[in-house]
């Protein structure tokens, strides 16, 4: 049966040390709660590059294509030749394509961010502790019951102020 323990730390470096210890001994999954992004914790977790960038890229390309497609379609749909100029006036449409590249890229990135981070979320929070948006770092470890002592020792050794059990 799997269990959870939550270590509370007053310093990002201590939390990062706990993460490293737990991950090195390979006893369980780690989730960190923090008031700010923290590079030491990121390094300890060995995080991959976020795939928000793929969303932004695809959105941007889509925006660029739409920014050319919409004006070109409209001038062909209702041709209105003025001053003998060509209907498909690319330089003018570059402005539209440029703005839509940015608009779609930004919106797609935002949507990707929401999806990847599980937001917006209406569920009750797993860990509801106001200290983690103030000045404390929480390291939540999910592990098999047999590893309880190891995990507890790792959290305590790294300098946890308190360690609480979590359902």
């Amino acid at each position, binding site marked *: 049966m799997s269990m959870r323990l939550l270590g509370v730390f007053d310093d990002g470096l201590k939390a990062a040390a706990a993460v490293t210890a737990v991950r090195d001994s390979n006893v369980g999954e780690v989730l960190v709660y923090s*008031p700010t992004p923290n590079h030491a914790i990121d390094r300890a977790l060995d995080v991959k590059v*976020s795939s928000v960038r793929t969303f932004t890229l695809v959105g941007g390309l889509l925006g660029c294509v739409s920014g050319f497609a919409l004006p070109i379609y409209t001038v062909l749909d209702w041709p209105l030749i003025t001053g003998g100029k060509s209907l498909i006036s690319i330089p*003018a449409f570059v*402005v539209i394509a440029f703005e*839509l590249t*940015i608009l779609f890229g930004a919106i797609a990135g935002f949507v990707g961010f*929401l999806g990847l981070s599980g937001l917006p979320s209406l569920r009750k929070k797993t860990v509801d502790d106001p200290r983690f948006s*103030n*000045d404390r770092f929480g390291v939540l470890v999910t592990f098999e019951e047999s590893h309880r002592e190891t995990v507890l020792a790792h959290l305590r050794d790294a300098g946890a102020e308190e360690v609480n059990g979590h359902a």
Partner: protein
Amino acid sequence: MSYSTINGDILRTLRMPGPAYWGVLTVLVAVVLFAVYAFWTQTQLGLGVAGYEHPALWGIYITNFVFWVGIAHSGTLISAVLFLFRARWRTAVARAAETMTVFAVMTAGLFPIIHIGRPWFFYWLIPYPNERNLWVNFRSPLVWDLFAITTYLTVSALFLFIGLVPDIAAARDHVKDWRRPIYRVLAIGWQGTNRQWRHYNSLYGFFAALATPLVVSVHSVVSWDFAMSILPGWHSTIFAPYFVAGAILSGVAMVIVILIPLRKWLGLEEYIRISHFENLAKLLILTSLIVGYAYLTEYFIAWYSNNPFEQGTFLDRMFGQYAPFAWTMLICNALIPLVLFVKKMRTNLVALFIVSIFVNIGMWLERFVIIVSSLTHDFDPANWTDGVYTPTWVEGAITAGSFAMFFLLFLLFVRCFPAISMTEMKESVDQPAESDPATAWPAPV
């Protein structure tokens, strides 16, 4: 400074305000309501009450539009461009500047609608399949404007919101009164897990990277509203860079005008320090020099072109009926900011405040001079009569209303949301201490 002091100090700014706040709010609401009445008068009687008369068919509304779009720009400069440059001092002032951007674009967006004869048809600018089988003209700078401004409003509002989410979550966890459920909804379930932070950081970086070319493009497009025409005084290739620099000059001045009272009123002296104002003052000098150079180039090219219409327009601008405005603009934008070369002036908040007010007056007049002095001095000498365009009370009321609306929104915002990013402030505490964190320029990561 520790995490919990930052949390406490900044959340304290959200407590219920005193009677002075409500008093100011009431005055602002009254001014906005009077502007609404002026607009109603205009819809009943037509644009004649706005002083429009051939050939001056653009006036103060378009002046206001360009002015407010310009104000918006420094917010993006501070929040996005300085973020990409890793200028760490931006942390203290970025939130206020971003908020200013969103509200300034909202204010600006109203003016093209107020300016058109039948404002209830403003949506005809949007390309959508319709029963008239018509499409918008994508070769028109006004349609480019629509795309640029809506993109700018959407992206800057999202950028502001993203930055706010972790701070709203902190407010949700620590504010105990009736506002808590509202914060709970707005925090969209933010928990601050490492997974969320990873995507958050990535997104924030991309928004900064996207907002940077956007900010340059938006005011370039606004400048093309003028430069794409053949009117002397407007038809100029220098307009795009000249407008972007002018926008940032006026925007930085507005940030200073807002931050000096805000910092005192919310008691944020420890966070927004003199060194931050000094850096803003340096931005002011830089952009003022660029704008001054652009003025000289404009006049030089007008002379060098040997084009009688171009020369006539610029002579009229300097010595004609609107000459006092042109000279005031030159003095306010290109000369007065030069006093900030003296360090004592940069670090003296009263002096800085006065210089910034002058810059705002100057930048508003710059747009007025460009628009009105060029339109009233077109190709037909019969149009060159004095007093052909005189602003009316309707325009005055709506202009005052726009300023009131902007400050009203800003005042409401800073009482409901943290005026300084707590997340970024805490992050900056983590970093290795330099002699002065406000001026440190760490290597890019």
